[in-house]
């Protein structure tokens, strides 16, 4: 009776249609000491899978690995010594990176003699690199005004020339159309 059931399961097994539970039944069957001789060859197969799945790391695994990479067990034994700082405290690492970057940025700014320490915001960076010509805001405004007018008139010069040229083009275009 049992044999017929196992034969059926085996048939299913060869077709790869067995469920996990059915495979467990098969494995259990083949573990028993007495099985029909024609199936003796399969015994190894099923017991092999069983044995392999139970395989774990041996007790002396750590030791072996450490020996291979040339470290003594005593150093590894203390544990924390071996672990890198970053894995113990990732936020410390992040903070350190931020501080280092800030330090680097400040150092890069340092060579400029006009720099004031502790630059507050990005818009004021150019303030630290520009030395004022005027101390009196009134004079400064006069200079700004003069500069603006100069720039403005030059811009307009460009614009009027463009307009003139465009006008000329338009004229010649109309002449061409009228012909």
């Amino acid at each position, binding site marked *: 009776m049992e044999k017929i059931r196992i034969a059926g399961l085996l048939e299913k097994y060869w077709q790869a249609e067995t469920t996990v539970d059915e495979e467990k039944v098969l494995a259990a069957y083949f573990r028993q000491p007495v099985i029909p001789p024609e199936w003796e060859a399969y015994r190894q197969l099923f017991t092999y899978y069983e044995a392999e799945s139970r395989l774990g790391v041996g007790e002396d695994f750590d030791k072996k690995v450490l020996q291979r990479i040339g470290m003594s067990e005593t150093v590894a034994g203390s544990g924390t010594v071996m672990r890198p700082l*970053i*894995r113990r405290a*990732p936020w410390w*690492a*992040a903070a350190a*990176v*931020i501080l280092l*970057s*800030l330090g*680097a*940025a400040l150092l*890069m*700014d340092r060579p400029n003699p006009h720099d004031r320490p502790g*630059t507050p915001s*990005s*818009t*004021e*960076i*150019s*303030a630290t*690199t*520009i*030395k*004022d*010509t*005027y101390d009196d*805001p*009134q004079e*400064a*405004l006069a*200079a*700004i*005004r003069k*500069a*603006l*007018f*100069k*720039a*403005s*008139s*030059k*811009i*307009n*010069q*460009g*614009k009027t*020339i463009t307009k003139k040229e465009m006008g000329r083009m338009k004229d010649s275009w109309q002449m061409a159309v009228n012909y």
Partner: protein
Amino acid sequence: MRIKINKYCILLPILLWATGLRAQDDAIGKFFGKYIEDSRFTVVSVSPKMFRLLAKVNWDTIPADLKQTVTKLKSLRILSTESTPRQFYKEALSRIDMKEYEELITVRNKNENVHFVVKEEGGVIHELLMIAVDEDDFTLMSFVGDIDLDKMSRLSSSMSIKGMENLKNVKRKK
């Protein structure tokens, strides 16, 4: 591995930010820094600090257009020289990184060349740089801030338009 990636995620923006701070410098500081101390050059600088102090000035006599333009500026720097203007003009054109600056207006007369280049970001002009040369001198002028070109050109056109209108009237009277 996860921690390693985190580290670079933090490091990269900070480095970018740090270089961004450096990029705030105007074109004169960037390309002509060494001439600022040069005795052949005349330098006019108005720092952002001074621009803030301008608020204390009496603005009553100052036209609204001018006031609006000035209050949006952050800094002004002018560098000019009378010695070998043409040579410095050539140097200026070759030194200015045209990847950062965009050519805006070029005026070329018999005796004068003027270039306007701008640094633009998202449709806003952050810096206007004028490079001008004639027989007598070479001038670099850099405005940094939020620059409205229309308003800027109106500053002087209000005068020239009045002049033009007068001319028209003269013609009509004849």
